[in-house]
């Protein structure tokens, strides 16, 4: 979850800002969990890219499936939660799959396929071992630069 603090609010005159928008120079991260940077390009002519920070993987899926836009880039930033490393690591994402985790088949799951070919899932973006791919949700990047990963199992 992203956290704003009053001392970092940046004043933008209402005349040049979208209604009800608030602007910030700095945000905090309240939880030690993965978050996402999503860039999309509207399908309107001469559209610029819009970049979103998203705290939940389900919001990523909501955005890519509901926006009338092409997904140009998706990055996750996740904490090191095992071993001696501290801090965060990041991966560019190439595909998103709806999936089933055999350990919790009653809960819908998501797999994020990294540019390194690895499957990641969960709030810490752990390696997704044993997950079953059910349905391709989205491919990321210009169509001619994205090769599909291995077929659904």
């Amino acid at each position, binding site marked *: 979850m992203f956290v704003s603090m009053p001392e970092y609010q940046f004043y933008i005159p209402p005349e040049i800002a979208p209604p*009800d928008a*608030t*602007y910030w120079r700095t945000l905090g991260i309240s939880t030690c969990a993965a978050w996402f940077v999503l860039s999309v390009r509207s399908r309107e002519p001469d559209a610029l890219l819009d970049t*979103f920070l998203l705290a*939940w993987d389900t919001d990523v899926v909501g955005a890519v499936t509901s926006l009338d836009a092409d997904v140009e880039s998706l990055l996750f930033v996740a904490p090191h939660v095992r071993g001696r490393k501290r801090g965060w*690591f990041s991966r560019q994402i190439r595909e998103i799959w709806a999936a089933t985790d055999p350990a919790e088949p009653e809960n819908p799951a998501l797999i994020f396929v990294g540019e390194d070919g690895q499957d990641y899932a969960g709030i810490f973006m752990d390696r997704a071992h044993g997950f079953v791919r059910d349905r391709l949700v989205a491919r990321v990047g210009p169509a001619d630069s994205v090769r599909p990963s291995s077929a659904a199992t």
Partner: protein
Amino acid sequence: MFFTFPSFEYVVPPELKQAGETRWRSFEHMGQGFFVAVMTLSGDPPEHRRTLLMTWDSDLVHMLESPKIAATLHSLHYVSPCQSGAGEPLYREVREIRRGIDRDAGDVEVITFKTADGTAFCGQDAIPVPPSVRQDRLLATIGPR
């Protein structure tokens, strides 16, 4: 700069957050920024990891020079597609942050960054470091993860 709208607020009971803070599920981001994880010497527990997303290099330096910061654990520099010139976002790990001065600009203070791929840039707009910049005090070194 980050911006958001009331519909993206995530309401948390006041007793579970610090005074004044507001929690959000989503922001839109313009321009460039730094995703920084630091180990602080304040708070509860006294030494804990804190992660911030910052758009101004001056805010970043102000934080790094605080006596409450014990270590910088991770710093990722982000450049939006519009600014990167490549049509897609640019992400690069920052390995070193220094203060310096630009002798051709009246000794104005600049902040310089060196990334894992060997690139050096400075300032709010992440321009290449000009030869006139003299790099002085080392503010942070960040090892590979």
